[in-house]
């Protein structure tokens, strides 16, 4: 019974979903849409509520409040075995007493599928994860990476409405992880299956997702495409969580032609573009973020650019990383981090440098969602 008020184009919709464990709130008033066929990633530090949210969608945990919809239908009261979801667990959770074939075929037993079709579907699923020859083995005889693929095959063979993955790659070593990441993305795209992926690895989140949901302490800090959350962090938390950012406090001194002139506290001025939907008012106090890779260092003054600010500074420390280096640079009262590709030789400690910061790379931040919410709650 699709509720016309809710868009059945969304594979999953969360409306004001809350989860409390006793007095502790693990997930606060969460709103989220997962578009059909899209790959959505929950990312955030340990304990921020990623798993809890996923488990509520899966039906392994009851939501304390709010609505969870799958394909437009409210599922809060639908038991897990009727939700038609594929779940891949961090520890794979293959049935140790069943063969690989029986594991993958497990979900088909409960669906109107005859033996022959089941056999065909299992074969196809094993083909898709590129492990067609292991049917008669038991999970113990497989490597971690192979078990992970089988777990994936078991989840997709039932053609679930949504695929839920809780840190599926975290038990694999670095190389295998990279490989599985590409593989997983390929399979997801091939099947066009709506997917929610949980990770605390930012590079995984940025590399795989159509939409990244950054969470902290049970709140959504920001959701958007990988480019949006990376280049236009909404809050200090997001700016710091994804990559390395320089954060400043300051005041908006003037706004003209879409460019704001920002005076940093006891420091120089920067130019900044207000982010989409984030207007800057003159006199407003703001927090700003500049990504470390967007602080360009050079020996001599770079060419004149009206939408950039150039500061004088001095390198105080160098962290050599191969193709790039991370520099700590002092510019007047400010200390910045800059990650620059190495041209021929890295800058050395004590070297005077010019820092160029473009207006388009200066992001005006909002207060952290979890902090402003806490402040609001305290005020009430």
């Amino acid at each position, binding site marked *: 019974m699709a509720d016309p008020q809710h868009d059945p184009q969304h594979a999953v919709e969360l409306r004001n979903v809350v989860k409390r464990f006793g007095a502790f709130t693990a997930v606060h008033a969460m709103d989220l849409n997962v578009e059909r066929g899209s790959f959505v990633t929950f990312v955030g530090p340990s304990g921020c509520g990623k798993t809890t949210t996923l488990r509520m969608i*899966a039906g392994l945990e009851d939501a304390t409040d709010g609505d969870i919809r799958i394909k437009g239908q409210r599922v809060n009261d639908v038991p*897990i075995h009727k939700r*038609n*979801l*594929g779940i891949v667990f961090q*520890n794979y959770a293959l*049935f140790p007493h069943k063969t690989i074939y029986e594991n993958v075929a497990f*979900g088909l037993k409960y669906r109107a599928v005859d033996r022959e079709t089941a056999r065909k579907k299992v074969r196809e699923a094993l083909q898709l994860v590129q492990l067609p020859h292991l049917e008669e083995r038991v999970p113990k005889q497989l490597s971690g990476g192979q078990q992970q693929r089988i777990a994936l095959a078991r989840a997709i063979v*039932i053609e679930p409405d949504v695929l839920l993955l809780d840190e599926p790659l975290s038990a694999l070593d670095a190389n295998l992880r990279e490989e599985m990441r590409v593989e997983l993305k390929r399979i997801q795209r091939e099947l066009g299956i709506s997917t929610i992926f949980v990770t605390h690895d930012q590079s995984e989140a940025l590399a795989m997702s159509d939409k990244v949901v950054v969470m902290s302490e049970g709140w959504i800090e920001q959701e958007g495409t990988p480019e949006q959350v990376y280049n236009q962090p909404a809050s200090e938390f997001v700016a710091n969580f994804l990559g390395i950012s320089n954060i400043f406090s300051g005041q908006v001194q003037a706004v003209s032609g879409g460019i704001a002139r920002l005076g940093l506290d006891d420091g120089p001025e920067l130019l900044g573009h207000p982010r989409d939907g984030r207007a800057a008012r003159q006199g407003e106090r703001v927090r700003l973020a500049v990504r470390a890779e967007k602080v360009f260092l050079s020996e001599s003054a770079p060419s004149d650019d009206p939408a950039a600010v150039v500061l004088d500074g001095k390198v105080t420390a160098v962290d050599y990383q191969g193709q790039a280096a991370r520099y700590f640079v002092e510019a007047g009262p400010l200390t910045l981090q800059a990650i620059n590709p190495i041209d021929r030789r890295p800058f050395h400690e004590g070297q005077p440098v010019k820092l160029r910061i473009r207006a388009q790379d200066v992001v005006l931040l909002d207060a952290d969602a979890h902090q402003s919410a806490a402040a609001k709650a305290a005020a009430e």
Partner: protein
Amino acid sequence: MAVSDAHTRDMRPWALLSPALTAITLLLAIPTCFVIVYSFWLRTAAGDEQVGFYLDNWIEVLSDPFYRDILLYTLKIGLITTVCCALMGYPAAYFIAFSKMRNKAFLLLLLMLPFWISYIIRTMSWINILGVSGAVNYVLQSLGIVAEPIQMLYNEATVILGLIHFLLPFMVLNIYVSLEGIDPNLNAAARSLGSTPFQAFREVTLPLSLPGLAAGSLLCFVLGSGTYITPIVLGGPGDGMFANLIYDAIITQLNWPLGSALSIVLLIVLGSVVLLYNRYLSLGQISKGFG
């Protein structure tokens, strides 16, 4: 250097095992050898023991159907007890393992509580419950349901009851441990793939807890089939089990050679059950039951 290192390493398990091995050798292996030797001696009509190599005891034990029938009866009682313990123990273990209660440890403590009281006293407590002047008869009489007290004790059923009382905690502990060891995600995975709670139990939880059930059953069967106290305290004259024969031969008749032969028979029968089990199931499970 490397060789001697490897050598010390190889010896280490033996060093750790040696106190236990010494104890087992002194207290179990050597006495068992004595018992075997005894079984070939002979008790004369005068009541002396005649040292030598006589097969008389063995011929009597192995040919007299009396002993065979009691052995079969003993195994039957052991089996009934084991099945009852399994049926009663599984739900209890399941409840403890999956209870959302915070004091699971307390439930386990309750389970261990009976071990603090001697097995004999626990067995005797049934006399106060089911005896002629026991609690049940008192209630029945006070309510006027019966005029005269009923004799409920001293039959096969009370022997089994006493054995269940004695053995149930072993069963529950073993099943509990194997249920505890099951990854909860397995059940979640089965449910997400379409199993109802009962189907998930049948497909995942039950098969994965079978080793614990098997280990508990083995313990119950061996301990139950080897006891003589419960039949003495709660059984009637016809309810003696095989161990009671040994008790009678040695303590009552002072016929050590015959008692020894009977002991060896019971040891071999129960030992083969253990060995058969070991062939098909890992005995490692049993040790977990005490962890």
